[in-house]
C-alpha cells in the first residue's frame, strides 16, 4: 500500500491545512506529501529507529513511541485528522487505539489489508493461508497480528460508537466502491466519534 499513488489518493480525503497525526508514520512519506501538497501540519508516531531517522531527513516531525503505550501525549480533539495507514494490523491494542484515534482526532482514517479480498478467499479455499503482494508474509512469520475484513471493521467501528463517514476499497491505486469486501486488497474507512 505504500506506493505514492495510494498516498496521493488518500491525501485527497484530508482537508487543506489540516493538523494531522499519523500513527505508525513509517518514513514520513505521507506527512511530507500532506505538508507539500495540502499545506498540512502535524506529527508522526513511529517506533522504528530507521524510520525515525528517515523522518528527520525529510524534516517531518516524528515522535518515537510505541503505539501500544497509548496516545496520552495528546489531548482530546488535538488533531483534525488521525491516520492509521497500515498500522492497525500490527497493534495488540487495536481496539483501544481505534478509540484513541477517535478521541484525539476530529476524524480518523484507517487503511488495512482486507483479508476478504478474493485472492485471499481463493487461497483459503485451496486450504492455504494467502501469500500475496498485499499480504506477502507466511502465516508463521508475519508482522500482521490482526487480519480482518472490510465487514469486520465495519462491525468493530459500530461496537465502538464510531460513525462511519465513508468506506471504500483500494485496488491497484483505484477506489473500489462496488463489492469492496471481495474486490479490494485494502479497506479504507473514514470515521468520527459519535457525539455524546
Amino acid at each position, binding site marked *: 500500500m505504500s506506493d505514492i499513488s495510494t498516498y496521493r489518493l488518500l491525501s485527497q480525503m484530508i482537508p487543506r491545512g489540516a*493538523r494531522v497525526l499519523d500513527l505508525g508514520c513509517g518514513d514520513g512519506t505521507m506527512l511530507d506529501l500532506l505538508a507539500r501538497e495540502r499545506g498540512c*501540519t502535524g*506529527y508522526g508516531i513511529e517506533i522504528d*529507529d530507521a524510520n*525515525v*531517522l528517515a*523522518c*528527520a*531527513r525529510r*524534516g*517531518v*516531525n*516524528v*515522535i*518515537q*513511541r510505541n503505539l501500544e503505550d497509548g496516545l496520552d*501525549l*495528546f*489531548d482530546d480533539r*488535538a488533531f483534525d485528522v488521525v491516520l492509521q495507514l497500515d498500522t492497525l494490523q500490527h497493534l495488540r491494542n487495536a481496539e483501544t487505539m481505534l478509540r484513541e484515534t477517535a478521541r484525539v482526532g476530529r476524524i480518523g482514517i484507517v487503511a488495512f489489508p482486507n483479508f476478504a479480498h478474493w485472492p485471499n478467499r481463493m487461497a483459503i479455499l485451496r486450504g492455504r493461508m494467502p501469500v500475496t503482494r498485499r499480504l506477502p508474509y507466511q502465516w508463521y512469520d508475519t508482522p500482521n497480528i490482526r487480519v480482518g475484513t472490510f465487514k469486520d471493521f465495519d462491525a468493530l467501528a459500530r461496537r465502538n460508537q464510531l460513525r462511519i463517514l465513508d468506506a471504500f476499497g483500494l485496488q491497484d491505486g483505484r477506489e473500489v466502491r462496488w463489492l469492496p469486501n471481495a474486490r479490494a486488497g485494502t479497506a479504507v474507512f473514514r470515521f468520527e466519534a459519535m457525539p455524546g
Partner: protein
Amino acid sequence: MSFVVQPQAMHFDGPLALRSGASISGYTLAYETYGALNAARSNAVLVCHALNASHHVAGVYEGQPGSEGWWDNMVGPGKPLDTDRFFVIGINNLGSCFGSTGPADIDPATGRSRGADFPVVTVEDWVEAQALLLDRLGITRLAAVMGGSLGGMQALSWPIQYPDRVAHAVVIASAPNLNAENIAFNEVARRAIVTDPDFHGGHFYEHGTVPKRGLRIARMIGHITYLSDDVMNTRFGRELRDAVAYKYTTQDVEFQIESYLRYQGDKFSEYFDANTYLLITRALDYFDPAAAYGGRLADALAGCQTRFLLASFTTDWRFAPARSREIVRALLDNRLDVSYAEIDAPHGHDAFLLDDPRYLNLVRAYFGRVAAEVGAA
C-alpha cells in the same frame, strides 16, 4: 585526526543582573569557535556544556593531542554537527573553573578570591551571558542551540528567554527540572564537599588547601548515576582487583568498581573547583521554567517559535525518557514543531557523549535539514 583550536576570552564590564538579585561586573567568558560564520550570519550554532565540561567542545589544543574536546565525536568537520557548514560556538559558563570568571578568581574589589561569596548563578543567567557574547560576535539569531543534560536545560531555556533568536533547539538527555531524587544526589555531593575539613567555608584558596576528599566523593556519587546498572555490571561486575579471595578488610580497594570510582574521584579532584561544583549543582536544582507558571511547562513554552529535536536514552535513569516526554508533551500542547527520539542505548545518562550510531545519525540528519534551511549546505 582532530583539528587544532584555540581558546579565546571576552571581557565584559557588566554589570550582569542575576536571577538571585545579585549582579556581577568585570567578568570574563572563555569561548571557542569552530568553522566560519557565513555572510548572512545565519549558520551559528551554540553548544551549551554540561556539569564538568567547558567551552572546549571540539578539536585539540596545539601540541596537546590529549586535549580533545568533550563532544569531538559530535562536532567537527564532517561530524553530525558539521563545522564545514556551521559556525559552532562553545562558551564556558560563568562560575566555572575553566577560564570564565568563577569562585577561584580574585575579586578586584577585595583583592581576594571570591570563594563561596561568588554569587549563585542559574541556567537563565548563563543564557543571558551567552546572549551578550553572541551580541559581540554579531550573531542576532542562532541556527540552533544544542546541549545535553545540564546543557540541554540551557538549550531549552534559550527559546523561552529569546524566542526570536533561536530557530532550532536540540535538547538531549535532559529534563524540565530535577526530581527530588536528583536533588538528593546533588545534596549528598555538596555535603561531601562542604564538610571536608579542607573546605574552610569555601575560602580554601587562602588556606592553600583543596577539599579533595569531598570532591572525590561528590564525583563518585555523580559517576554512579551517569551509568546504567547493565554497563557497570558488564564493565566491572563483581570482579576483584588483584586477588581471587576476599581480604576481609573494609579499608582497601577490593572490587574493580571501587578502584574505578576512586580513580575517577581522584582525577576529578585534581582539576575541578569545589565551589564551582556547588554552584553548578545548585543551578541544576533551581532550573524549573514551569515554576513561574504554576508548574505548567506548556505555559512556560507558550511564547516559543523554535523548532525542537529531543532525544533521550532508555537506560538513563538520572534524566529518564519520561522527563523528556514531559517536554515533548508541553511542546505538543503548544503545537510547536518537535521531533523526539527515544534511543534504546545501554549506557545510561552518559550515552549522550558516546558513539551510538542511531543517535549520531539522527543529529546528523536533523542538522542536514537545518543546514539546507539556513543556506549552509
